[in-house]
């Protein structure tokens, strides 16, 4: 999956990927975009395994509005 950039930050669509590939792809992006960036994740389920990994590197996640069947997360550096 190829990340792309919009005005609200970097986007990555990991829908349909088997675990742990969404986790790996999201963290790979987070590790490369820099602390000031925002990452928007398009997922088909709540990525439970992602949250401890984000906490470990000082990032945070919050759910944002999305269409039916999608879980959309906004990842930012924790204050």
């Amino acid at each position, binding site marked *: 999956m190829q990340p792309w950039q919009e005005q609200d930050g970097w986007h990555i669509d990991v829908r349909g990927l088997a675990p742990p590939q969404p986790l790996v792809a999201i963290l790979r992006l987070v590790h490369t975009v820099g602390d000031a960036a925002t990452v928007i994740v398009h997922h088909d*389920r709540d990525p439970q395994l992602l949250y401890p990994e984000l906490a470990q590197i000082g990032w945070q996640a919050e759910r944002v509005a999305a269409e039916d069947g999608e879980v959309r997360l906004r990842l930012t550096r924790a204050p």
Partner: protein
Amino acid sequence: MSATPGLRGATPPQSGAPARAPIRRGAPVFLGGAKGRLLPASIPLRFFGAAAAFHLLAWLALAVGADQWPRFGGGLGWPLAALHLITLGVLGMSAIGAGAQLLPVATRRPAPGHRLLSAIWWLYTPGVAVLAVGMGLPSPPLLAAGAAAVTLALVTWGALMARNLVGARGMPGVVVHGWAAMFALLVLLGSALSLAGTWLGLAAPGRDATLAVHVLFAPYGFMGLLSLGISYILVPMFALADTPAERSQLTSIGLAVAALVLAALPALGFVPAGAAQVAFRIAALSCGAGAVGLHLRLMVQALRSGMRRELGRSFTLVRIGWAGLAASLVLALALVLQIPVPGLASWFGLSLIGVWLLSFLLGMLQRILPFLAALHGGSGRRAPTPSALTFDPALRFHFACHLAALGLLALAIAADSAWITLAATAVGAAGALAFGTFYTVLLLRMRAPSA
């Protein structure tokens, strides 16, 4: 891929060799409803807690049977009790907890009902304890009662796992490993009940054949295949690597199943005694070596290509476990060829259970437990990080004790010494206490109010 419009022409981040972000402790994270799809923390953690307790009891049981251990060749007594406290108490207990929580994540199916899992724990935990006491004393009625409870608990858990595997989406390699492990579980439980029946004096045909099948399908079948399969989830997850090629996973499990079948045929008497049986067993070991070699190659590739290179002592234990798996096949070949080495059966058992399965599991648990606790820990917007939950001094002490205990057990076999065995059990028990301390501190930190 989403069709979301945007600046797709923008320069994408590099994906080949990503930079490593600094690890910062105590950072907050919003769990975003993650808890809704998890089992209650008390369910998997009670299985892991019981495993930690049985780990200590296993070393104590071995201490009681220290004089029999170096040349242990089967039969009731405390070495057999210690063996089953490890296989059922530590390995089986952890498999139930990990399978219940991790398999639904992999198969993308709902987690099993927590009340049924709780009932399994209440049946299985005393069942293992009674079984071990029955083996140690020995008391065949206690042994049989424990075996019945353990069998009922494992059959129920196996049914839950099978229901989960039926609707699995994707990950065919992991799913096939799961099915093969469940089949091996049925074989080992059937053989276990038959063996328990013989201790009660019931007529059970072919005790030697049953024992051979049990010894084959418990470590290499059920626990082995489950370990290999779950590694295809856990190793890429912890190393942050791509999933190993599905075709290679399927080739490996195909070879492993062929090895089990080829080894079972002579054990069950389907192959005439003599050279033909030796040929079948060597063929089985060849298939097993192929399966293990392919699996380890995939694991090494994942570790080398992963974003997280420093996996610490936990993965040193995992690597030691893999070495033990390979060594067990070499020792099995020596057994098949009847090479006259004193204590060869004990060397084989130590390599298979102590070095491979126990080291592998303890290494994985050191990563799984803080990760799982972090998912459940804290409240509101702040949750603990896995590293903040880990009491590292206890793990450092456990690591040294575990390796020293295994080394001393090997020395005890070489020297045929009960005293060295006793020293090994003292060191092993100290390590088990340290692991228990790590677990207890984890629970306390998980429940502590977060900032």
